[in-house]
C-alpha cells in the first residue's frame, strides 16, 4: 500500500475490544455510587382506565422508602414530538404497563415489598387493542379519530394509469407483527443531583434526547442537565426514546430522596414496558404490463402506534417512503396512517418502519411475478432502480445506485437459479439430522435511505468537535454513541485518516452532553455517513491548523508545506505532526474545530407535499435465503443466507459485515420464531424462554458480500448500514418457505403453527 497510514477500509482492532473481552467494560448495572438507592416502578394493571386513587402502605414511610407520584413531577411530560406521554400517570391509564408511581429503597430486596405497598384504585374502561378497533374509533385513544399521523405520496396519476389496456392487476394485503429488540443488556440508568444540576448515567442511544426530556419535565436549564452514556449492551432503536422515561424516573427519585438512584429493569419489565416494532397492515394494488413493467402502485399503509405518539410519525414517514421498494414506477399513490391503540407505545427499531412496508412490497412482487409467469428474480431485475431513475417522491437517483450490483452478486454467490430449479424438482429430502424436509430458496431486493428524511439533517445541524491534544493526539467529541456497532472505532479511523495521524493517537470522548456537542441522535443509519463526515471535516480542520502553524513558524507559504503521514515537509525539511502540534498548543492552548453538518446544496425536499429528495443517499441490498422446512412439523430452518449490500464504502469491513449479519439474523428471527403473545393488552410471554430469538444452532451460515458504490457526500464514499440489513431478510425467507411448502403467506410471523393453519385453510398454492 502506498500510504502506510491508511485506516479507512482496514480492519483495525476495535477500540473497546480489550475491555469487552476481559470483562473490564463497565455497563450501567456494573456501576455503584456511594449511598445509592435502588428504584422501581409501580405500573398500571389494566390496558385502559381511570386512576382514581393511590394509597401508600404506612410500611413504606416507616422504612424510609422514597415514593414519587405524578404530583412530584414539575411538568408531567416526556418531551419528544407531541408531548402527549406523561412521566407518571395522573388520571388516564392508556396501556397495561404505564408508570403510575416510583419507589426507591436502600436494599434491592425491599423493592417488591415497596412496590406492593402502593395500591391503585382504577375504574377500567374498554381498551382499543387492534387496528380494526382503532379504525372504528368508537372511543378514541388519540384525538377524534385515533389517527396519530398521516402521509400521502402522489406521483403521476394512479387513477389514470389504471385505464391502460392490457394491464395485469394484482392485489394483496400484507401484515407484520410486533418485534422485541431483545438487546441482551436491559435498560438502566443512575441519576443524582448536585450543585451543577441533575446527572444521568445510562444505557442510552441518544444522550441529547434524554437531555431535552430532563429539561422539560424537571424544569432545569441546558447547563443543569448532564447525560452520559455508559457502555451499552445493544440498542437497535430500543434505547432511542425510551431512556428518557427511565432517566426521568430515576432523576425524580434522586431528587426526592437526595441520593443517587439506580433503576435497572428486569427482563420481563423491559419486554413489557419499553418500545417495540410497530405492527402494520399494508394493502397494495398494482398494475403491470405483461413484460413485468410496473405501471402503477397504489399502497395503503396502516401502522399501530400504540398508546402515545412518541416517534410514530417518523417511523410512519420512513415506512411510507420505502413503500414502493426499490422499483421504478411512473404512477404511485401511497396513503399512510398511524393509529392509536391501548398498547405500549411502539417505537424505534432498526429499519424504523421500512421493514414493514418492504415486507409488503416484496411479497407483492412475488405474487406479481407468479401471476405474470416471470421468475421472481427477473421481475425485480426488470424494475430495479438504476442511476437516473426517479423515485415516488420525484427524486432523481444520481449517484451511488448499487441495487443491480447487489442483485448480481447475491444471485451469483448463492447459485440462485440452479438451487431454485433443483428445489422445485426434487422431492422430500433427508436433512443432516435425518428429518424429512423440503427445501426452498427465495430472494428480496431493497433499499434504505441513509440519514434523516428530507430536510431533517439541514434542520438538525449535527455538530462534532475535534480537539488537538499534546503529543499530536486528537480527541473526537460527538454525541453519536457506540452501542455495539463500532462507532468509536470507525470515528477514530475517519479522524486518523483525515488528519493523517496514527489511529492509536485518536481518542473518542465518552458521550456526555456536558462535554460533547449535539451531533444528533444515533439513529437512521446516519452515524457514519452524516456524523462521520463531520468528524472527517473537523479532523481535517485541526490538521490544517497545524499545517498553517508549521508554515508560520518556518516562515514559508502554507502551500509549500506538505502534510504527509504524521509529518510535514517543506523547505525546512521534515517535522513530525507531534512536534508541530505541541508547538501550536504552546502558543494556543485550545486548538479545536467545531464543525456542523453541511448538506449538499442541491437537495430539495417539501414536507407538505412529500416530494423531493427524501434521502441524500440510499444503501442497497439483495438477500437470498435457503431454507429447509420439516414436512412433519413445519419448522423452518434457514440454512444459508447470502447478503450483498451496497454500503458506499466499508470503513471497517469486519464491523460492517457484522452489521449486515446481525441485522439479517434479527430479520430471520422476526420471520420464523419471534412472536409476542397478547391477551387483553398484556404480554403473556415476556421472558426469554418464551420469546424465541435464534441461538447459534438456529442461525444460518452467512455469506456476506459488501458492495461499494461510493457516495460522494459520505466520508470516503460511505453510506449508512445500520438498518438496511433488517429490511430484506423476512421476505427472502418467506419466498423460500413458499417454494418449500407451496404456502404463500402474506402475514408474519411464519411460525410452524402459522404454516399449519395456512395448510389447513388451503392457502393459495
Amino acid at each position, binding site marked *: 500500500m502506498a500510504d502506510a497510514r491508511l485506516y479507512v477500509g482496514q480492519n483495525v482492532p476495535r477500540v473497546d475490544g480489550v475491555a469487552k*473481552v476481559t*470483562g473490564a467494560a463497565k455497563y450501567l448495572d456494573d456501576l455503584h455510587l456511594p449511598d445509592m438507592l435502588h428504584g422501581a416502578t409501580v405500573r398500571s394493571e389494566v390496558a385502559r382506565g381511570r386512576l382514581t386513587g393511590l394509597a401508600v402502605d404506612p410500611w413504606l414511610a416507616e422504612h424510609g422508602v422514597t415514593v414519587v407520584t405524578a404530583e412530584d413531577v414539575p411538568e408531567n411530560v416526556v418531551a419528544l414530538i407531541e408531548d402527549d406521554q406523561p412521566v407518571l400517570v395522573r388520571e388516564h391509564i392508556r396501556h397495561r404497563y404505564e408508570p403510575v408511581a416510583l419507589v426507591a429503597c436502600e436494599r434491592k430486596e425491599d423493592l417488591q415489598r415497596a412496590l406492593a405497598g402502593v395500591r391503585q384504585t382504577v375504574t377500567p374502561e374498554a381498551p382499543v387493542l387492534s387496528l380494526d378497533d382503532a379504525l372504528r374509533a368508537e372511543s378514541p385513544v388519540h384525538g377524534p379519530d385515533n389517527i396519530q399521523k398521516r402521509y400521502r405520496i402522489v406521483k403521476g396519476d394512479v387513477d389514470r394509469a389504471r385505464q391502460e389496456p392490457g394491464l395485469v392487476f394484482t392485489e394483496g394485503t400484507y401484515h407484520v407483527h410486533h418485534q422485541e429488540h431483545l438487546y441482551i443488556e436491559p435498560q438502566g440508568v443512575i441519576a443524582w443531583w448536585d450543585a451543577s444540576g441533575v446527572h444521568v448515567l445510562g444505557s442510552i442511544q441518544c444522550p441529547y434526547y434524554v437531555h431535552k426530556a430532563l429539561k422539560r419535565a424537571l424544569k432545569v436549564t441546558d447547563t443543569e442537565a448532564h447525560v452520559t452514556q455508559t457502555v451499552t449492551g445493544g440498542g437497535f432503536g430500543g434505547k432511542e426514546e425510551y431512556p428518557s422515561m427511565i432517566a426521568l424516573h430515576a432523576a425524580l427519585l434522586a431528587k426526592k430522596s437526595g441520593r443517587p438512584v439506580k433503576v435497572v429493569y428486569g427482563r420481563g419489565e423491559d419486554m413489557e414496558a419499553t418500545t417495540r416494532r410497530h405492527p402494520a397492515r399494508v394493502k397494495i394494488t398494482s398494475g403491470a404490463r405483461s413484460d413485468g413493467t410496473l405501471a402503477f402502485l397504489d399502497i395503503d399503509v396502516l401502522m399501530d402506534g400504540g398508546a402515545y405518539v412518541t416517534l410514530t410519525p417518523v417511523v410512519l414517514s420512513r415506512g411510507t417512503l420505502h413503500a414502493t421498494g426499490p422499483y421504478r414506477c411512473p404512477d404511485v399513490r401511497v396513503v399512510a396512517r398511524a393509529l392509536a391503540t391501548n398498547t405500549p407505545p411502539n417505537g424505534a427499531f432498526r429499519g424504523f418502519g421500512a421493514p414493514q412496508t418492504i415486507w409488503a412490497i416484496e411479497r407483492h412482487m412475488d405474487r406479481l411475478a407468479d401471476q405474470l409467469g416471470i421468475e421472481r428474480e427477473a421481475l425485480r431485475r426488470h424494475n430495479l432502480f438504476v442511476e437516473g431513475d426517479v423515485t415516488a417522491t420525484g427524486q432523481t437517483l444520481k449517484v451511488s445506485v448499487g441495487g443491480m450490483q447487489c442483485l448480481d452478486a447475491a444471485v451469483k454467490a448463492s447459485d440462485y437459479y440452479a438451487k431454485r430449479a433443483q428445489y422445485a424438482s426434487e422431492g422430500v429430502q433427508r436433512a443432516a439430522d435425518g428429518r424429512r424436509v423440503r427445501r426452498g430458496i427465495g430472494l428480496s431486493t431493497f433499499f434504505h435511505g441513509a440519514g434523516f428524511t428530507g430536510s431533517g439533517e439541514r434542520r438538525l445541524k449535527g455538530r462534532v468537535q475535534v480537539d488537538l491534544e499534546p503529543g499530536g493526539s486528537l480527541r473526537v467529541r460527538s454525541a453519536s454513541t457506540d452501542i455495539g456497532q463500532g462507532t468509536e472505532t470507525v470515528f477514530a479511523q475517519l479522524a486518523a485518516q483525515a488528519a493523517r495521524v496514527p489511529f492509536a493517537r485518536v481518542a473518542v470522548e465518552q458521550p456526555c452532553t456536558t462535554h460533547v456537542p449535539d451531533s444528533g441522535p444515533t439513529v437512521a443509519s446516519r452515524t457514519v455517513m452524516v456524523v462521520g463526515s463531520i468528524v472527517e471535516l473537523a479532523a481535517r480542520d485541526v490538521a490544517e491548523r497545524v499545517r498553517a502553524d508549521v508554515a508560520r513558524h518556518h516562515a514559508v507559504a502554507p502551500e509549500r508545506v506538505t502534510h504527509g503521514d504524521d509529518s510535514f515537509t517543506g523547505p525546512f525539511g521534515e517535522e513530525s505532526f507531534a512536534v508541530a502540534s505541541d508547538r501550536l498548543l504552546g502558543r494556543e492552548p485550545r486548538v479545536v474545530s467545531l464543525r456542523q453538518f453541511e448538506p449538499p446544496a442541491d437537495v430539495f425536499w417539501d414536507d407538505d407535499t412529500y416530494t423531493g429528495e427524501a434521502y441524500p443517499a440510499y444503501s442497497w441490498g439483495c438477500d437470498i435465503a435457503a431454507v429447509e422446512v420439516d414436512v412433519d412439523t413445519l419448522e423452518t430452518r434457514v440454512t444459508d443466507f447470502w447478503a450483498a449490500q451496497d454500503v458506499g464504502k466499508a470503513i471497517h469491513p469486519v464491523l460492517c459485515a457484522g452489521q449486515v*449479519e446481525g441485522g439479517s439474523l434479527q430479520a430471520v428471527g422476526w420471520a420464523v420464531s419471534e412472536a409476542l403473545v397478547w391477551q387483553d393488552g398484556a404480554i403473556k410471554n415476556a421472558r426469554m*424462554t418464551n420469546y424465541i430469538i435464534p*441461538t*447459534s*444452532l438456529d442461525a444460518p451460515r452467512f455469506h456476506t458480500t459488501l458492495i461499494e458504490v461510493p457516495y460522494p457526500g459520505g466520508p470516503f464514499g460511505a453510506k449508512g448500514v445500520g438498518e438496511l440489513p433488517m429490511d430484506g431478510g423476512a421476505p427472502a425467507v418467506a419466498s423460500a418457505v413458499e417454494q418449500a411448502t407451496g404456502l404463500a403467506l402474506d402475514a408474519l410471523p411464519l411460525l410452524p403453527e402459522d404454516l399449519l393453519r395456512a395448510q389447513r385453510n388451503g392457502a393459495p398454492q
Partner: protein
Amino acid sequence: MTTVTVNGIPREVSSGPLSRLLDVLREELGLTGTKEGCGEGECGSCTVLLDGVPVNACLVAVGQCDGRRVTTVEGLQEGPDLTPLARCLIDGGGAQCGICTPGMLVSASHLLARNPSPDEAQVREALAGNLCRCTGYQRIVDSVLEASRLLRARREGASP
C-alpha cells in the same frame, strides 16, 4: 459461611447460601464481568465455570458452591497478554455490544480445552446456550475456529 475458590483465590462469602452465585460474584465480590441478561438460564451472559464446567450463575445457589472452584471471565486471562481466543474475538468481529462476550468466552474456552479441533457444528453447539443479538453468530463461530487453529499451532510449535 460459604467458601468458594473464585479464579484461584479462596473467598469467604457472607451472602446467604440461597443467594444466586451471579449476585455474589457481581455484588459481594465485585466481579462484574459476569452479566445478567434474563435471570432464567436462557441468555448465558452469566456463564461461569463451576469445577471447570460451564453453568449459568443465575441458576446456582452459592451454597451449592461451597468448597468448589468458580472461574469467571476475569479468571480466563493468563497474564498481561490477551488469550488467543480473546484476541480472535476482537479481530474477527465476534464482539459487538459485548454484553454476551464474557459468557461466550467462558463457553468457548471450555470447548477448546476439551476439544482442540472443533468443527463448526461443534462450536455452534458449545455456544448454543449463549444468546447474542448483535452479530448473527457467524463471526463468533469463526473467531472460535480461528482461535483453535492458533492454539493448535502454538502447541505444535512448543513441542517439536
